């Protein structure tokens, strides 16, 4: 059950073994999950809604005081989290939210640059509530871009973005990744996104990593590439969609 990364990276950045987590007595959310993420490895996590992806991320970030459970977790010191809700402090303006906790003379400039990168130049002094859903999400992204974590945990960071913006943000995330080479655990619902971005894709199901798929497409990852399509079909099947995306409109 427990997948182990091979020798791709020099050491493991994240090690989880035998992780159990539950909120209520009857139904565990994570039940004996084992996982290793190599240093500098980019892992995408898929899974049904409610399957425990956020729970796993929160456990890695040490934020699961609501839950009970056992298991060993090792993570690097510097962890950065992009929450599923964008979680901007409502009482701080956008720029302040981005540079929150950063010190040093360059902090503000770095924050401005990051905002510009996510397409929000000029909105530095807006309040979070004045932003559209996607803009808020991008601020949250900018907040993680200005940091240099050893582990980046991102919980559906692109969920509220349109296709073009999303692709731009993919680029930004890859750039950040290339720059510092953190280990990344990215939760997403978009299978294509997972395949395009990650080195390895995991599917969480019934509290454990049910499926694991190393993405060994070379260079350009083109969704129209048949190998890409094959991986997609495989992952969709793991998610419970036998024949890929299909819907009978008049069925109901």
């Amino acid at each position, binding site marked *: 059950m427990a997948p182990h990364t091979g020798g791709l990276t020099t*050491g493991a950045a994240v090690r989880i073994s035998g992780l159990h987590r539950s909120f209520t007595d009857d139904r565990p959310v994570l039940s004996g999950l084992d996982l290793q993420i190599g240093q500098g490895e980019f892992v995408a996590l898929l899974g049904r809604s409610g399957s425990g992806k956020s729970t796993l991320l929160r456990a890695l970030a040490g934020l699961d005081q609501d839950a009970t459970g056992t*298991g060993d977790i*090792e*993570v*690097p010191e510097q962890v950065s989290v992009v929450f599923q809700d964008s979680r901007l402090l409502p009482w701080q303006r956008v720029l302040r939210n981005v540079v929150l906790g950063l010190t040093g003379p360059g902090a503000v400039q770095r924050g401005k640059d990051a905002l510009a990168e996510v397409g929000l130049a000029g909105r530095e002094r807006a309040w979070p509530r004045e932003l559209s859903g996607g803009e808020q999400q991008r601020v949250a992204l900018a907040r993680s871009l200005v940091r240099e974590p050893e582990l980046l945990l991102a919980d559906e960071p692109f969920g509220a973005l349109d296709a073009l913006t999303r692709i731009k943000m993919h680029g930004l995330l890859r750039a950040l990744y290339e720059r510092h080479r953190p280990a990344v655990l990215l939760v997403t619902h978009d299978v294509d996104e997972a395949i395009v971005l990650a080195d390895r894709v995991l599917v969480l199901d019934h509290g454990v990593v049910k499926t694991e798929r190393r993405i060994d497409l070379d260079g350009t990852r083109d969704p129209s590439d048949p190998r890409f399509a094959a991986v997609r079909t495989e992952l969709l099947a793991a998610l419970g969609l036998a024949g890929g995306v299909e819907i009978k409109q008049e069925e109901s």
Partner: protein
Amino acid sequence: MTAVKTEAKAVVPPVDDEELAAGRASRPRGKRRLGPGKPIPLAFLIGPLLLLGVWAWGSAAGWIDDRVLTAPWTVVTTAWERWESGKLGPDLLVSTQRFALGLLFGVLAGLVLALVSGLSRWGEAIVDGPVQIKRSIPNLALLPLLLLWFGIDERMKIITIALGVLIPIYIHTHNGLRSIDGRYAELAETLRLKPAAFIGRVVLPGALPGFLLGMRFAVTSAWLSLVVVEQVNATSGIGYMMLLAGTYGQTDVIIVGLVLYALLGLASDAIVRLIQRRALTWRRTLED
């Protein structure tokens, strides 16, 4: 590196120490670094007990003058004597009755006014100013007017207590209500909630945290009002007891009264905080 087992059942053994040097850390489950952290059991007793300790120790060591601040044991004896002789019980009972009635009416009136003023700008224009004025003027100075309007008997006492209670309930509920996130009002609007449902499902629960904070002030304010109202034509009650002890200079009885006030205040406050904790389980805050 020491892998912290979050509980005994951990499956994988701890890893070697070198990795610790690599700047890694393992996180125990849910340990908060910021924020107040886990509640200490019976913490609410520590402060008062500490105070009691200082008092007792100071009295015993002699650097608290017994003639000004009676020693705790003397206070206990005095209280016990008064209780035995059947003086304290009735005083307490009468005061508690006044407290309860005043609280009841004050809370009801405060709530109604807060709703009227919170939900309508005209209501606010009319209600808010007078309430602010009421709370700006000293109760003691208001007494003559209250006497005039409500006489010198029980009714006046309960109204005065209720007026004192009304203030924090009104202000806090009004403030809580107006602080409700506008998005929930939008939701209520698109769901075409009837005003009654809007009040019952959105306004009151949304203002509940504010209201409960108001209750914390209301209960102490109700006890404190006794000091003023029981100066007038009262023949029992702890306010009266203190007044009487004051005129005769019975320091020990005054301190008994103060301790009684402290206990009643602490107890009422604790009850409200308990209700607070129960009623606000839907929140996850720094408190939890």
